[in-house]
C-alpha cells in the first residue's frame, strides 16, 4: 500500500499561536556528535516475527495483560473520521484500527502484550488455514460459539456471502487480493456480486458444511493466511445487508457493537454480549465502551492528549500520529516518555532512480553513495519520525535482516568522494539529474537537502516542483522525463510478496504501476515467479529478502533512506497499549482503563 499519510498531502500550515514564554531558547543540544550531526545508531532488529501461529495459539481467551482491569470508557480522538465502516471497503490504516473492535476475520494478528511478539493466528477460524493442492486450495474451519450481535450464529455461509459482496460494483475501496486470486485480474467481469442472485460456484469458493470454507485459488498463494486477516473476510449477515448503506451500521461479530454513529462527529461502541471471549485469542476487550470523537483538529488533538484534563486522561488516537509541531516538546520532555508509542511503520522511503534514463548502474550507485541520509532525517524531524534505513524491505517484514552494501551506516551524511570516483569510472563526471518533488513545505526542504549533497559529488540537479495531488500519477508515467524521485511503499502484510513483485517486476511496465524506477531485470523477473511458488513461508521470506538485496546491490534502482516511524502519545489513564506494526496503528485489543 502506498504511504497515504498526511505527510505527503498538502499539510495545511498550522497557524500556531506564538507564545513568548521563554526569552531565549536553550538550543537543541548535541545528541549526536560529529559532522553531519545525525544519529547513526544501527537499526535494531525488531522483536515481532510475524510467523504463523498454531491451532493452540488460536484458542481463546486472549492472554491477560499484566495489571489490566475491566471497565471504564476509552475516549478516542480522531482527526478525520472513518470513510468506511463496511469491512469490505476497509483498507486505510485508520479503518483497520477501528475494525478490530467490531469485526472478526478468519485470521488476525496476535500481539503479545509484554514481549510484543506478533504472530498470525486463527480468529474466526480454528487455525491460519490448511493448504492443499500445492498452495492453491485453502480450507478454513470456523470455531464453535461464534455469534453476531443479535445472537445469530456465524456460519461458513456468512463468510462466503461477505466474500461475494466484495464483487459488488459499489465495493471499490477494499483490497482486491482474494477476488483476483479466485477469478483472475478481470474478476468483476466474471462475477457481479450476490445481489444479482448468483453465488460463487462451489469449485471456486465452497462451503461443504456450516463450519468449513474452502478457497480454490487459480495459483499457489502461500501467503493466503495474511490476506485473510484483512477486514474483507469479516462476516456480513445477509439479512442485515443493505448494500452501500451497510457502511453506516455494520453488524458486529466482535466484542463491541455500535451504539450510535454520527458520521464525522462521533462513534460510540458498547459491549456486544453475544461475543464469547473463550473463542477469541486476540481481543482482551477490557473497557466497557469506546467513545470516538471525530473531526478533532490538530495540533489541538495532540495538545489535549498531552494535557490530559478531564476525560482526555483516557484519550488515545488509534491511528493518527502526533502533530509535527508538538514533536520537540514530546521528545524532549520526560513526562511523556512513559506514554509514548514510537514504532516502525510498514513504509520504506526510497529515492527511485529512473533506470530507463540512468542506464549505467555505476551512476546509480554514485547517487546511493552521495545520498545524504542523516540530513534528510534532520529535515524529517529526527529519529522519532524515521529511522535511517538501508534495506528495501521494512523491519516490519518477516525475515528482515540489516543489509548495507553502500556503507551508509558508516557515512550517513553521504560519501561524495566515493561517488566522484564512481562517476569518473562511468565516464561522466557531471551527469544532470532531473529531480521532481511534491510541492509541500517538507519536500521543498528535503529536495533542497538532497540536491545540495548530490551536487557536492558532481551531479547537476534540476529540481522541479510538482502538484502534490498528482505527484504519483506524474512520476508513474513510463515516459516521464525525470531521473530521481521519492516514493514510499509499505507492505499490506508482513511478507515481501506485497513489496518485491509490485515494485520490482519489470514485465508489463505501463503508466501507473508501482515499479517507479521501471527496473526490468530478467533475473529478478524469473526469481519472482520462482519464489511465489514456494509454499514454505519462512523459506519464501528468506528468498524475497535475498532478491531485494540483489536488487539493491546489483541494480540500485531505488535508494532506501528512511523507515517511517509511528509516534504518538496516549492519556495517563490508559494501560496495556500495544502497537500493531503490520497496519502501523495502535492495537485496540489490549488497551485498558486504569482504575
Amino acid at each position, binding site marked *: 500500500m502506498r504511504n497515504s499519510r498526511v505527510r505527503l498531502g498538502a499539510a495545511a*500550515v498550522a497557524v500556531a499561536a506564538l507564545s513568548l514564554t521563554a526569552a*531565549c531558547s536553550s*538550543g537543541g*543540544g548535541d545528541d549526536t556528535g560529529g559532522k553531519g*550531526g545525525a544519529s547513526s545508531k544501527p537499526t535494531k532488529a525488531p522483536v515481532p516475527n510475524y510467523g504463523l501461529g498454531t491451532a493452540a495459539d488460536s484458542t481463546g481467551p486472549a492472554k491477560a495483560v499484566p495489571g489490566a482491569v475491566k471497565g471504564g470508557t476509552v475516549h478516542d480522538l480522531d482527526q478525520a473520521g472513518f470513510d468506511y465502516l463496511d469491512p469490505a471497503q476497509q483498507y486505510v490504516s485508520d479503518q483497520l484500527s477501528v475494525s478490530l473492535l467490531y469485526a472478526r476475520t478468519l485470521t488476525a494478528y496476535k500481539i503479545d502484550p509484554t514481549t510484543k511478539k506478533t504472530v498470525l493466528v486463527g480468529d474466526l477460524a480454528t487455525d491460519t488455514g490448511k493448504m492443499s493442492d500445492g498452495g492453491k486450495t485453502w480450507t478454513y474451519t470456523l470455531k464453535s460459539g461464534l455469534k453476531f450481535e443479535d445472537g445469530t450464529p456465524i456460519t461458513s455461509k456468512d463468510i462466503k456471502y461477505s466474500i461475494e459482496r466484495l464483487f459488488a460494483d459499489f465495493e471499490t475501496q477494499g483490497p482486491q487480493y482474494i477476488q483476483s486470486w479466485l477469478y483472475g485480474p478481470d474478476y468483476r467481469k466474471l462475477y457481479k456480486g450476490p445481489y444479482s442472485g448468483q453465488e460463487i460456484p462451489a469449485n471456486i469458493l465452497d462451503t461443504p458444511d456450516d463450519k468449513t470454507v474452502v478457497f480454490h485459488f487459480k495459483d499457489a498463494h502461500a501467503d493466503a493466511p495474511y490476506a485473510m486477516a484483512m477486514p474483507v473476510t469479516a462476516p456480513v449477515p445477509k439479512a442485515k445487508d443493505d448494500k452501500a448503506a451497510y457502511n453506516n451500521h455494520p453488524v458486529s461479530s466482535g466484542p463491541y457493537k455500535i451504539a450510535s454513529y454520527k458520521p464525522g462527529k462521533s462513534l460510540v461502541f458498547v459491549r456486544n454480549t453475544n461475543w464469547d471471549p473463550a473463542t477469541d485469542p486476540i481481543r482482551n476487550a477490557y473497557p466497557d465502551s469506546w467513545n470516538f470523537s471525530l473531526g478533532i483538529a490538530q495540533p489541538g488533538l495532540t495538545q489535549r492528549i498531552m494535557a490530559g484534563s478531564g476525560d482526555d486522561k483516557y484519550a488515545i488516537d488509534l491511528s493518527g500520529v502526533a502533530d509535527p*509541531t508538538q514533536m520537540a516538546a514530546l521528545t*524532549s520532555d520526560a513526562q511523556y516518555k512513559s506514554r509514548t508509542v514510537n514504532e516502525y511503520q510498514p513504509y520504506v522511503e526510497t529515492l527511485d532512480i529512473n533506470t530507463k534514463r540512468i542506464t549505467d548502474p555505476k551512476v546509480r550507485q554514485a547517487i546511493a553513495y552521495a545520498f545524504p541520509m542523516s540530513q534528510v532525517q534532520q529535515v*524529517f*524531524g529526527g529519529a522519532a519520525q524515521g529511522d535511517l534505513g538501508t534495506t528495501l524491505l521494512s523491519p516490519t517484514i518477516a525475515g528482515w535482516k540489516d543489509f548495507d552494501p553502500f556503507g551508509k551506516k558508516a557515512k550517513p551524511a553521504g560519501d561524495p568522494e566515493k561517488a566522484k570516483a564512481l562517476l569518473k569510472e562511468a565516464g561522466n563526471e557531471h551527469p544532470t539529474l532531473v529531480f521532481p518533488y511534491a510541492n509541500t513545505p517538507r519536500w521543498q526542504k528535503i529536495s533542497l537537502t538532497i540536491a545540495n549533497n548530490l551536487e557536492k559529488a558532481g551531479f547537476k540537479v534540476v529540481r522541479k516542483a510538482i502538484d502534490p495531488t498528482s505527484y504519483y500519477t506524474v512520476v508513474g508515467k513510463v515516459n516521464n522525463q525525470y531521473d530521481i524521485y521519492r516514493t514510499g511503499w509499505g507492505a499490506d502484510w508482513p511478507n515481501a510478496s506485497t513489496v518485491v513483485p509490485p515494485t520490482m517486476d519489470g514485465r508489463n511496465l505501463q503508466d501507473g504501476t508501482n515499479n517507479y524506477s521501471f527496473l526490468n531485470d530478467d533475473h529478478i523477473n524469473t526469481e519472482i515467479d520462482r519464489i511465489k511458488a514456494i509454499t514454505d513461508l519462512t523459506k519464501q521470506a528468506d528468498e524475497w529478502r535475498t532478491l531485494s538485496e540483489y536488487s539493491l546491490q546489483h541494480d540500485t534502482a531505488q535508494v532506501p533512506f528512511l523507515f517511517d516511524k509511528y509516534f504518538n502519545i496516549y492519556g495517563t489513564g490508559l494501560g496495556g497499549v500495544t502497537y500493531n506494526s503490520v497496519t502501523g496503528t495502535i492495537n485496540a485489543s489490549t488497551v485498558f482503563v486504569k482504575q
Partner: protein
Amino acid sequence: MTSPSQAAADAGDLTLEPEGEPGTPGNKGTPELAGRTPRQLAWLRFKRDRVGVICAFVVGFFILVAAAAPLIVKLYGKNAYDLYGQDDGLLNSSGIPIKPNGGISSDHWFGVEPALGRDVLALLVYGIRTSLLIALAVTVISVATGVLFGLTQGYLSGKTDYFMGRLSDFMLAFPQQLFFIAFSPVAISLLVNPGEQESWWVRPFVLISVQFILGWMSIGRLVRAQVLSLREREFVEAARISGASSWRIISKELLPNLWSTILVQATLLLPVFVTAEAGLSFLGVGILDPTPDWGLMFQTGANNYQSDITFMFFPGIAMVIFVVAFNLLGDSVRDALDPKTLR
C-alpha cells in the same frame, strides 16, 4: 487587514476646505513673507516632526538593506542558499541548532535556520528584499490604477461615474484575505501545467496580481471624491473657459492637487502589502523555498517555536519595526502636507 483609507479620506476632505489657505497647493495663493512654496512648507513641517524623521531613517535603512542585499551578504561572507547547518554539523538529529539561542555564533550572527541550516542574517536580508520588491510593485500598480480610475470617474461624472463606482464597490465587497488564499493556487495552476516546473516569475507575478486586483479601489474612491469637489472650483472653471483640453485640466489643474493624497495613501498602503505578502507566503500560497522570503521565515519559525524561539525573533522584530515605522512615517507625511488634520 484594513486599509487605512478611512483616516486618509478625512484628511483629504479637510484639504478642500474652501478657505484658501496660503499653503493650499496649486492655488498659487498669496505668498508668505519668506516666499516659501507649499513644498518647502511641507518639508519644514516634516523636519520639525521628530518621530517622522526617525521613522524616515528606519524606513530608509530597510530600503537600503533590501537594495544592497547582495553587497551586505558579500561583506558578511555567507549567502542565503548554502545549507551551512547541515554541511557543518550545526544541527542535531531533529534539525534544531545545537548551540543555544538558535545557533548564534561569530560565524552566524543571527544563528542558523532549523532543519535546512541556512544563515538567518542572509535569509532575512534577502527575505526583506523579496517582500519589499513585491509590495512595492503592488503599491505602484495599485496607486497608478487607482488614480487613473478615480480621475476618470470624477472628471467624467454622470453615468460613467455611476458604473465605475459600482465596479469598485463590487471589488471592495470581496473579502480580501480569503480571496488571496483561494485564488493564488488557482492562478498558479492556470499558469503552470501539472507536472511542469514553475518558472521563477510565476509566484511573484501571481502574488502581485491578486493583491493588485483587490488593492486599487480605496485610492480610486479617494481620488474621485477629491476630483468631484475640485472640478467645480474656480481655477478649473477658468481653465475650461479659456479652452483647455480635458487632458490639460486633468494633468495640470487636478493632478497637482492630488499629490498629497496619493503620497500619503501610498506610504500607508506599502506596509499593508508587505504584511499581506508575508501572510500569504506564511500560509503556503505565496513564495516557496528556496527563495528567501519574510513570510516563509515566519512559517519555519511557527513550526519550530517550541524548540527554537530565537529563530522567530529576527524576522518578527524586523517586521514589527518596519510596519510601525512605515505607518508612523505615513502619518507624519500626512501631517506635513496637510497641517489642519487633527490627530
